[in-house]
């Protein structure tokens, strides 16, 4: 039976473990940083002499680490885009906004092991010549922000932060910045605007790729909490060791958040691609299956923005002769993309046969209607229309053509907006309506019939 493989969450559930620096150090904390800062120039993979900072950037590339915030973009590649010649300061921002519905993994790290995140931030900042970094944390993590503040103060006292980090001559300050309840602050350019003290209106890419024109128009790295923790382990054990975990192109471990209709909801850290969706939902080590007597209906595999899977679906994956069943899909970046959805933020929401897909979709559509930043007309208006149509359908006033109308609206948002929120709000609607179309049409017909009967009576 597949097991968890805890690397980042190794200690968080140990009752004797705490968020203080002494505990962290007792468990090997800040060893990787101390080692890195003492390092001399050395021979890189290509034989040339490289700086210790270049060494860590190379290790991160070799690890094939992909971002854990949603897009799964290569971390090494992102770092390589940073404009190091502009003469402007380079900033690093840790994205701790964690607001994709279904996701609660970064919270575990922030609340229970803040120094691990800090060490990841310090190492990543050092590797990229960053002297000022921010942790953008969602406003509702009030205690989380305090825990991070305390950790930063401790780290500064012990010389891990400040004007002369561990007497190496390297200088770094890290500050906690709190958001204030807007989902769009998770989008990296919205986040940057918000950190500049403005409304979180995402910026148009190009030209505003953060690596070139980010915070204060300076080169900026934005990485998710979990990604930065992975960097710490890569610095500690080397990129090759990290890449041995998981599967090719889907390396390392990943924290999966399981919620909805399972017996054991929770967070599970697994080697990427070594565990299937079926195992995550049904194995006793993970979700423990559905409630007694229930059947699986649908799976949202990567946060509410991911396209839904319907129970019983099969997929044609690259290089495989036979079609793969939904429950046999390895939970990794590439398989889910090939199956037409995504692993997104690593959040799986399970729906059993008691779930009303119309009500579930109405709930998600309300979320997006509420959270659209309002800059783009298709997103601002479309998200609202979709939520209104779905509320009508869920509330007994649907029509048969609502399914078609919803698809029409969603298709006109996708690809026509400034940021990926457009897709995030269109995809759930498109996939649920397409895959459960009969439920929508039956419901609409019933409501129309009831309305005509009420009129004639």
């Amino acid at each position, binding site marked *: 039976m597949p097991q968890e493989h805890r690397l980042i969450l190794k200690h968080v559930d140990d009752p004797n473990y705490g968020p203080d620096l002494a505990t962290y150090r007792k468990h090997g904390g800040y060893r990787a940083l101390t080692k890195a800062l003492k390092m001399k120039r050395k021979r890189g993979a290509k034989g040339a002499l490289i700086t210790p900072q270049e060494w860590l950037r190379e290790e991160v590339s070799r690890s094939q680490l992909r971002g854990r915030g949603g897009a799964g973009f290569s971390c090494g590649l992102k770092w390589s885009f940073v404009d190091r010649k502009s003469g402007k300061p380079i900033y690093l921002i840790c994205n701790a906004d*964690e*607001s*994709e*519905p*279904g*996701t*609660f993994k*970064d*919270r575990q790290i922030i609340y229970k092991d803040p120094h691990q995140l800090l060490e990841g931030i310090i190492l990543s900042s050092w590797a990229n010549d960053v002297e*000022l970094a921010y942790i953008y944390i*969602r*406003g*509702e*993590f*009030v*205690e989380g922000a305090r825990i991070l503040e305390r950790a930063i103060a401790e780290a500064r006292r012990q010389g891990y932060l400040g004007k002369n980090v561990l007497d190496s001559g390297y200088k770094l*300050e890290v*500050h906690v*910045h*709190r*958001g*204030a*309840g*807007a*989902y769009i602050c998770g989008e990296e350019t919205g986040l940057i605007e*918000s*950190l*500049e*003290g*403005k*409304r*979180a209106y995402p910026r148009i890419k190009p030209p505003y790729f953060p690596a070139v024109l980010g915070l*204060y128009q300076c080169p900026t790295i934005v990485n998710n909490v979990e990604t930065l923790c992975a960097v710490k382990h890569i610095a500690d054990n080397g990129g090759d060791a990290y890449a041995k975990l998981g599967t090719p192109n889907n390396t390392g471990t990943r924290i999966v*958040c*399981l*919620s*909805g*209709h399972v017996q054991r*909801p*929770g*967070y599970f850290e697994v080697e990427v691609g070594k565990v299937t969706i079926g195992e995550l939902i049904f194995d006793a080590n993970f979700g423990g299956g559905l409630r007694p007597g229930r059947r699986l209906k649908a799976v*949202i595999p990567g946060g*509410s923005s991911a396209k839904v899977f319907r129970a019983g679906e099969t997929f044609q994956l690259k290089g495989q002769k036979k079609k793969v069943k939904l429950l046999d899909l390895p939970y990794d970046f590439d398989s889910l993309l090939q199956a037409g959805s995504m692993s997104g933020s690593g*959040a799986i*929401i399970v*729906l059993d046969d008691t*779930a009303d897909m119309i*009500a*579930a979709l109405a*709930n*998600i559509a*309300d*979320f997006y209607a*509420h*959270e659209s930043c309002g800059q783009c007309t298709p997103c601002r208006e479309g998200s609202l229309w979709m939520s209104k149509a779905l509320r009508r359908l869920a509330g007994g006033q649907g029509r048969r053509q609502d399914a078609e109308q919803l698809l029409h609206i969603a298709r006109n948002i996708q690809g026509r907006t400034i940021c990926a929120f457009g897709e995030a709000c269109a995809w759930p609607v498109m996939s649920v309506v397409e895959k459960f179309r009969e439920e929508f049409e039956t419901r609409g017909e019933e409501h129309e019939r009831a309305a005509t009967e009420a009129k004639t009576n």
Partner: protein
Amino acid sequence: MSLNIPKKLETAVNRTIRNYPQKRSASLMVLHAIQEHEGYISPEAVEWVARKLELEPINVHELVTFYPMFRQQAAGRRVIKICRTLSCALAGADGLRRHLCGKLGLDERDHRLQITEDGRFSLESVECLAGCGVAPVMMCGDDFHEGVTPEKADEILKEKE
């Protein structure tokens, strides 16, 4: 209403501003500090923050209207936030909401911030609080509560009275 910013708060605000190369960046943090102290963001507070950060009041006002956590009116003494998003909905958030609205004499159809008649509590629906694995979840003040059954909610309210 006049604004009363104690010396200590102003010192903390000044310290926060120094964390940023540009003053304007401190906006959200300063607004949080003011709301924690005053309970909400008044027009006077907007002006004060604008002066402090060398901005026009509109630059601050547009933040208060954009970010859901900021309020322009006073709320009840304890603000309860119930998550209404999918995982919590699947775990019974709606029942929890109805229960609390009934108990506090509030309108269960209104998801915006409501205040009880005696001003002791406020209730509002919020989006996913990143606690979906322990749904349904709610916040009371700054505290986060998980697996909240109606009975558990009653206990939490009693404690906070």
